[in-house]
Structure formats: C-alpha cells, structure tokens
C-alpha cells in the first residue's frame, strides 16, 4: 500500500456508549492521515469482515477531534446492529471523510436546525464546528423522536442556543412530530426565517418542504441514502434534481450530502 495517501483505514473503536435502546455513540480512533472534515461529511464503515452485510454503511460525522471520529448510530437494520454491538478495542475499516458539499456558514440573525434519527449527528457537528470558529450566530435545534429517551438530550444540551423537542408518545416536549412543532413555533414568532438546515429521514425532509418551505428564505438538507461506492462513481445513491430547468440525477455521496431543497425534484422523488 504505497504511493498514495489513501482515504481508507483500518482503525479501532475507542469507545461505544449506549445512549438509548436504539442508539449509541461510537468514537473511532482517528487514523493518521484522516483529513479534517466539514459538517455534512460522513464516514463509510465496513461493519463485517464477511459479505453479510455486503456494503459499507455511511454515517454522518458527529464530531472530529485530533484523536477521535465520533458518529451517532441508530439500530435500524443488520448493519447498524452489528456495529452497535462492537466493543472498544475492536478493529474496523472506515473510509472518509466523504461527501462533497458542506453546510454553508451562516450569517445574519440565526439558523434553524431540524434533526431526526441519525440526522442529529451532522447537525451536532455543524453547531460545534461553528462554535470553534467563533461564529456567533443563534442556533435553534428542533429535534423529534418517538420517546423521551430517544431524544438523547444529554448529547447536545450545550451545543445550541435554543432546543425545541417533540416526541410522538408525548413523554417529553411537544406531543406530535417535529414539523408540527416547528410550524407552531413559527406562528408564535421568534424563529429566524433566513436559514433552515435539516438532516433526517426522507419523510421528515419532505414534510418540511411541504409545510414550512415558504417560511424560510433558504432550506438546505443533508440527505440519507443507501450507497454503493460512496465516491460518486457507481451512481447508486442518486436523487432526482432540477438544475437550470433540466432534470438531472445527483449523487448524495459526492454531489451532496447537502442540497438546496429547491434543487430536489420532489415530484419525481417519491
């Protein structure tokens, strides 16, 4: 393995902390040569040495220090459950940082984040990165989950200026989904309307576009997708987009992960 500084590595799990019945935070030892990352980028993890599951799994970077790379893992299938069961000291292969388009730095009155599922990870990375860069903009986090314990509120308490939470079962915060809560808070006033950043499942992002699209000047979203190569080569993770009035397919892994929500062809992307 000579010649090139290859962006894939064999590394070890430094810590694996269970955060809730379905979520854990894994910190990987940062390998030598792992480049600095920007919010919206991800790592691709080979969770098994055998071929089930076959593909590497992409996870948004939740934080990056000189020694560690952390990611939020939600157990949703066989890949994530194998990963969540790994212990400190175990070796895994990771590639990264991957993803071509970052969250822009904010200006003005403030930014609204909406996070669901593992989408919380990149949003935390974004807030922390801006703090480290002394960007003094107010950050409003809207976080939704099924239950109180899935809100994982210990994870990000100090990272945002304001936190609004919603649970489906009503065990904490607003009872209902996070998009409804955002609508209500916008109606009340006090929510900056310049910039919305969302990161989460497609259904959540779609609901945001449908119901709050007109309330924000710009809505950028970091999308999730099943990925093959994670490098823009295989064209497996594409979403339909519209550019200069033309229908095109854009890869989430390289031409995202962050997209202007207006560029996505929501009619086409069912």
């Amino acid at each position, binding site marked *: 393995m000579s010649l090139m500084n290859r962006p894939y590595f064999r590394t070890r799990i430094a810590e694996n902390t269970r955060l809730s019945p379905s979520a854990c935070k894994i910190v990987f030892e940062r390998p030598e040569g792992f480049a600095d990352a920007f919010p919206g980028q991800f790592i691709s993890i080979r969770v098994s040495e055998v071929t089930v599951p076959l593909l590497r799994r992409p996870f948004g970077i939740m934080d990056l220090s000189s020694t560690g790379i952390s990611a939020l893992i939600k157990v949703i299938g066989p890949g994530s459950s194998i990963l969540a069961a790994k212990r400190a000291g175990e070796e895994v292969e990771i590639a990264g940082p991957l993803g071509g388009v970052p969250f822009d730095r904010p200006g003005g009155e403030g930014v609204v984040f909406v996070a669901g599922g593992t989408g919380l990870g990149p949003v935390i990375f974004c807030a922390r990165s801006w703090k480290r860069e002394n960007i003094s903009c107010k950050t409003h986090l809207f976080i939704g989950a099924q239950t109180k314990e899935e809100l994982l509120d210990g994870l990000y308490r100090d990272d945002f200026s304001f936190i609004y939470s919603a649970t489906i079962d009503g065990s904490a915060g607003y009872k209902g989904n996070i998009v409804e809560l955002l609508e209500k808070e916008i109606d009340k006033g006090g929510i900056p309307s310049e910039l919305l950043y969302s990161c989460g499942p497609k259904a959540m992002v779609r609901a945001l576009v449908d119901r709050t699209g007109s309330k924000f000047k710009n809505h950028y979203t970091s999308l999730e997708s099943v990925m093959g190569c994670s490098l823009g*080569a295989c064209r497996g993770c594409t979403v*339909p987009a519209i550019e200069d009035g033309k229908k095109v397919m854009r890869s989430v892994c390289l031409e995202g992960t962050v997209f202007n929500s207006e560029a996505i062809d929501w009619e086409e992307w069912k």
Partner: protein
Amino acid sequence: MGGVEVTDNKDIRLNIGRSVFENPVFLASGPAGYGLEYINYIDMRKLGGVVTKTISFEPRAGNPGVRLQETPSGLLNSIGLENVGAELFFREKMALLASAGIKLVISLAAEDWDDYRRLIGYVAERDNIEIVELNLSCPNVERGGMAVGTDPDLLGKYVRLAKELLPETDILAKLTPNVRDIGGLALAAEEAGADGITAINTIVGMDIDLSSSKPVFKRVRAGLSGPAIRPVALDAVWKISRTVKIPVIGVGGISSVDDALKFFMAGAAGIQIGTAIFYDPGLPERIIERLETGGIPSRIEYLTGKTERIEDGGKAGDNSGAGCREQG
C-alpha cells in the same frame, strides 16, 4: 491458497487480440465509474486495465427511484446505464484517464441497431481506441441491452459491425447469464470475430418492499451482482472457455484472492472485479500481487478427460441440468 500450485510462469501479461495488458486483473464496468473516482483508492496504473462505465451515444439520466438494494452477499442494482454520453466522454474524460496512466477498456451500449451504428461510427472516428467491451447484456434498460445479448444471430450481427467499423480495435463481447446456453452465445460472438468474451453480466432478480407492498425497483426487475452470483459466473466461465478459443474474462462476485484463482482454474484468461471494490478496494492489487508471486494457476483438467465442444450453438442449450449433459 494451500492447494493451488505455484506455476513457473511468472509472465502474467494478457493478450486480447492485439492488445497487451501487463496483468489480467481489471475493474469491471459500472462500480468504478469512469475510473477517476477511485483514483485515491486503487493504484490504477497497477491494474491490467479499467473497464469504464458503459457509454451510450446520447447521455443517459439512468433509472428513477431506488437504484440499490442489498441482498444476502449480493447487491441488486437498477442504475440504468447513467452516463455522460459519447461526446463528453471522448472529449473530456478520455484525456483525463489517459493522463492518469489508466489503461482503458471502453464499455459501449446502444438502444437499437440504428443507435448502435451511430455509436460505433462515432467511436470509429476517434483515434487510439485500443479495445472496447460491447455491453449487449444489461438487464436494466428498456431497449437494446439484454434483448440483443440473448439472441446468437443478433449478437453476431452486432459484433460483426464493430469488427467491420473498428478494424484497429479489439472487441470484447460481454454476455448475460440470463440465457439457456451461454456457451452458444459465446460461440456466436467468436464466429462473428470477437477477440474475447466477458462473462457474466448481472443476473436478473427482484425484491419487494413490505412497507409499501410494491416492488423495490420502479422497473421491478434489477441486476444481481456480488458474491451471491459467483458460482454462476464460475460455471459460465467454465462452459465458455471450453466452447471458444478466444480469451474469456471472468467477472461475477469475485471477492477474495482465492475466488480469483478459481476463475483462472475454470478457464478464465483474465478477471474483472466489480461490486467488491465497494467494500474492499484493496482487493484488485492483492490479486495482482498473488499472481506476480505465484503465477497464474493452471486450468483444471476436464473432469471426464473429454474436450468436446458444445455443438448446439445456442439453439438447444442446457442450463437446466447444471451442465451435466454437456460433460457427456
């Protein structure tokens, strides 16, 4: 690797027609894109070559909806030959690839005969196109694709045109396993002048999304690749290499050095790595290192000692009996 003999033959170069490759290990068409995307992951100059993503005359947007679905040790894809089209590829990507020192096999596909004539005519006007791979077997497109690759007469007609219009270029015909007799198709390609056979393309499959009670893919059927199809690919290589004299390039589910050795033992002259680079980009170079130190393993002997060719030329092939009958 214990039982595999180390051969004295350390010359691992591969000849296909007049093309010479430093070693017989290629990246398969599709997963690696145009080759450039993997440039930081795989030392492309060490490879025998890179088969590009399939190029069509017009740009193609590819298929809408879900494009990838994992299966046990496999991957269903419905990409639909998304590509930038011939003009942009030959005008821009080719030069970039050449300057990166990548040895290219250009994969080509068309929608119908007219589109094919136009594409091959366009390629004929370009200089220095050493070798192309005709993708006459993609299951993920409405027209062209597999329809041509399953009919020996049509396959022969396509290969003959390429030989006629591209006299300086070597021609690989990539075959689909979704047929009764892949050996007969290989023979048709050889008789039409193909310089080599690539086998196999993906196997047709489907999946259903339980939450919506609908097929996962908009086109319903998709192409299966990955280790799950390896025995099928190995069998196809075995059959084809006993049917034709031209070199056979084996592809389908190779995911370890040992897998690669088996393909050579089954009769492949070269191999391509596809899906495996998604999770193990170091694999092609490990295979090359093994071949450089141990040589290319010899073909295994034909089980019955007989070497008869399959004579039915695709008319009454025999896939159903797992190849038993053709072994006599």
